[in-house]
């Protein structure tokens, strides 16, 4: 067990846990940040995706002891003063979900993609998002939402 000071959504939060406990488990089970979801525990589905220093990372594979002072942003940290990010708004506008369980991971992954590649081609979207599973099969709408968000960033 150890005490870890984490930088999450701009706040400094401290937890006393085993260093090998996953960041996902710490977020969900210690910090009540349940918007980040468990889907497989082995980095195959993307439901647990968070931003780690701005880039998408699978929190289920990340021991909390290795997070250090990295800036972590979860789905709860995207909205600012009641304003959705363009990606969140685009998911709403395209109706890019059914049950919505994958949505947090999809949105965080898309935010990461658009930071690195503001105007991705469809092929780049598919390549970047292929590690995220939507069992309801809303992939075409998610691609459309990412396109829409990218277009908005253009104007």
């Amino acid at each position: 067990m150890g005490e870890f000071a984490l930088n999450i959504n701009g706040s400094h939060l401290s937890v006393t846990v085993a260093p090998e406990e996953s960041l996902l488990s710490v977020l969900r089970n210690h910090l009540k940040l349940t918007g980040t979801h468990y889907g497989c525990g082995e980095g195959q589905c993307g439901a647990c995706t968070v931003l780690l220093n701005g880039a998408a990372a699978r929190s289920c594979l990340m021991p909390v002891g290795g997070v250090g002072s990295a800036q972590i942003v979860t789905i709860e940290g995207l909205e600012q003063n009641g304003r959705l990010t363009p990606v969140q708004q685009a998911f709403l506008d395209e109706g890019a979900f059914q049950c919505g369980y994958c949505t947090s991971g999809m949105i965080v992954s898309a935010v990461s993609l658009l930071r690195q590649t503001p105007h991705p081609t469809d092929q780049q979207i598919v390549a970047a998002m292929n590690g995220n599973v939507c069992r309801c099969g809303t992939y075409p709408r998610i691609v459309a939402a990412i396109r829409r968000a990218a277009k908005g960033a253009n104007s």
Partner: protein
Amino acid sequence: MSSRAGHLPQVDPNLEPFQEERWRLLALPLDRRDFLRFFGGGLLVCLAHPPAVAQESGRNFGGHPLPRDIAAWLHIDAESRVRVFTGKVEVGQNIRTSLAQQVAEELRVPFDSITMVMGDTALTPYDMGTFGSRSTPTMGPQLRNMATAARQMLIETAATRWKLDAASLIAEAGKVTDPRTSRSFTYGELTGGQDLVQVVSDPPLTPAADWKIPGTSIPKADGRDFVTGRHQYPSDIIRENMLFGAVLRPTGYNATLVSLDSSAAEKLRGVQLVRDGDFVGVVAPDAFTAERAISLLRAQWNVPAQPSNRELFRILKDSSDPGDGPQSTSGSVEQALAAAPIHVDQQYTVQYIAHAPLEPRAAVAEWNGSNLTVWTGTQRPFGVRDELTQAFHLTADQVHVIQPDMGSGYGGKHTGEAAMEAARLARAAGKPVKIVWSRSEEFTWAYFRPAGVIEIRAAAQHDGTLAAWEHHNYNSGSAAIGTPYVVAAQLVHYHPASSPLRQGSYRSLAAAANVFARESHMDALAHAAGLDPLDFRLKNLTDARLRAVFQAAAEGFGWGREKSTPVRGWGIAGGTDKGGYTAACAEVAIDPAAHSFRIVRVVQAWECGAIVNPDGLRNQIAGAIVQGIGGALFEQILFADGRVLNPRFAQYRVPRFSDVPQIEVVLIDRKDLPSAGAGETGIVALAPAVANAIFAATGVRIPTLPMAPRTPAPGSPAPPLRS
């Protein structure tokens, strides 16, 4: 409570309500005063179940009767806020929104004024569950009746207050207005604190042609909660002083526990071991410790030898009794087969597949004395309540099951395993306990879409007239087993069998398997007769609704514009079940050198009567196509000796972004027909359309689902093409 942990009951794959739920408005519920205290004063619309129809089919519900007590469906408070109560649950099919649209229409209130209270056994009327595409055709009219009755009562109340004729008043936008004076009462003003209940039966509903709110694409009611992470799924529920539980799983099905050494696990701080026969679980202050404790348990299991994929199809055929199961016959199939010139005989097989909902089974259980509250993800909250009631020897009113909108189910969450486990552990711990199944637990200890063998013998005349049709389904199920085509001589027979694995409902039940076999077979007959596959179908089809979707899909796709080549194939298939009609055209690209193919384009037409929410419907149909790709091409459970060999997403391939073709959905809106459900039947056309497209290009008929697995199941032929 001491049943063997490794032994699980089968779930009937054909679980279906046989009886339309019929309701009529009678009087107040007995506990109305309690209810009003809880929700504040207001108008309460109540229904009673007529005793004559108060019995379900009884299958899989232990004969659980519909409740005869009176229950509340709709409540309008003094601020004109509307609460609607239904036992149906939201699992991504968008029923929370589409039911609210229908209530808003009949009640004449803004959509935003409605809150749907769903799947809560203490607050909503009894409901068998959310399956069989029944929510739209049964709960829709049910709630429309209630809303219409409420509207009429509100008008009558206003008429009484104004001493006017009710027929001269208008209900609109949450108000009753006297058009001559323009004065009005809000609904809240009319209901505030008063009892406004009367007997109403079968009120006239607003025809779909006049709908203003249904028929439009209102976005998901609480969509913002899903893009901000605010929505709480069952696995997100947190209670004060909550502990975390985990269960020791046997190393195989039907295992017995020989020995257990729990000393290392019990040394972990805060860990409590709970043992009851072969059930072994732990509770711990946090999930990580609970999992660690499980991993430290040293258990010896005795697992009996059990079959594998290699023997699967032989077992399914051999274990069925030829006389068992429903069958229908007309004419003499043998004579018709002997007399007709064109014959196709083929055996089709489908492997077990997993629902793999992205949110695995989860539950939080909390005891308060002998009262139990459970939050869990299930398509049958009342069924889970009954399971808990029986298991813990409680009465139904001591058990409260709440179903937060969950990370879907696809037919895979009819049961209450996690609820049961959480309740067991919580009782032992004396504190609330959360259980969230791991992915491999979900793959292994849930239940599967049935595997099956389907054998079809059929014959046609030279001109393409179907002459004989014999269809046997072993184990996979009877949904959509009857052919929609006109054939004088028919024998259709579903053979129940002993399934080696636990099996149960899946999106469309066996319709996907039966339609795959039938539409592959129709395609083979068309080619054997030298006819265009669409022309051949239409020649033998009189069902106007099914004809219409075939024609709409063909038109949208441009069917017949080009001929298939060795590198490009076009296929068509369709079917109907549960009031939904669908047909799909698929285009595949073949790489002969690489022995591979990919689906390039799918155009699918869909009709289910009057459309309630066009955008939600498109989402469902497109999603069904994508999910259908998994079962068509690569999803399969590999198993041997009581173990699932591929219980991980790394080993069990599901459709991803890169698997998705160009998809076009063509909707046919039949405002003259009642709305049917759309969550399931949209999945049936994809697999045969793709199989037929592959045949058109290559001349190879693939009669197995999945068609292109990465690794063929033992006992199955290597797939001719990869995908």
